[in-house]
């Protein structure tokens, strides 16, 4: 299953929307950097397997809305090893 990583704010461009268009059930989505602005509960995201890097959310004053799971760097690495391929949506 694919791990999608998004680092763009959902308000800045359509990287998140493009990602979700290629998202299939069982895939995982990880929000990092400005991608964490999608973790506030105002955006339509898959119901499970959505993760958000805690440090990036904290740094930006964003609280991660359940069921999105906050993760640290160690969990990020394990997500990368558990999934294949990994697709970056960085622009």
């Amino acid at each position, binding site marked *: 299953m694919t791990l999608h990583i998004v680092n763009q704010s959902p308000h800045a461009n359509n990287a998140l929307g493009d990602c979700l268009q*290629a998202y*299939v059930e069982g895939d995982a989505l990880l929000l990092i950097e400005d991608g964490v602005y999608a973790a506030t509960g105002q955006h339509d995201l898959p119901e499970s397997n959505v993760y958000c890097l805690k440090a990036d959310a904290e740094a930006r004053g964003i609280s991660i809305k359940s069921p999105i799971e906050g993760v640290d760097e160690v969990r990020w690495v394990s997500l990368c090893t558990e999934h294949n391929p990994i*697709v970056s949506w960085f*622009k």
Partner: protein
Amino acid sequence: MPQSKSILALCRHAPYGNALAREGLEAVLACAAMDQIPEVLFINDGVFQLLEQNPEAIGEKNLRRNLQALPMFGVETLHICKKSLEDRGLTPDQITVAGAELKFLDNPGAFIANFDQVLSF
């Protein structure tokens, strides 16, 4: 050299607004020159790369003309996201690339999941 990992290049951006489309093409040609022939998927604004274009007007090289070389380099099938075309008011019959087989995908996500490595441009 045996092909060890399957590679997909995801072409997601329109041709001339930034360097990504050209970088993607260069990466695909470089892989092919080393006998690691990738598959290519045009998705999102990347489908605009396939339209007839005349960039001499802005002093750029014609990216579509370069893309037409892909079959010569061994990339004989181009994959295109059908929904991305529709979202932009385009239809499959508007897309032609001489010498290449075009496959229009209904489910790009399932296609992406088949690969070992995905390069995003």
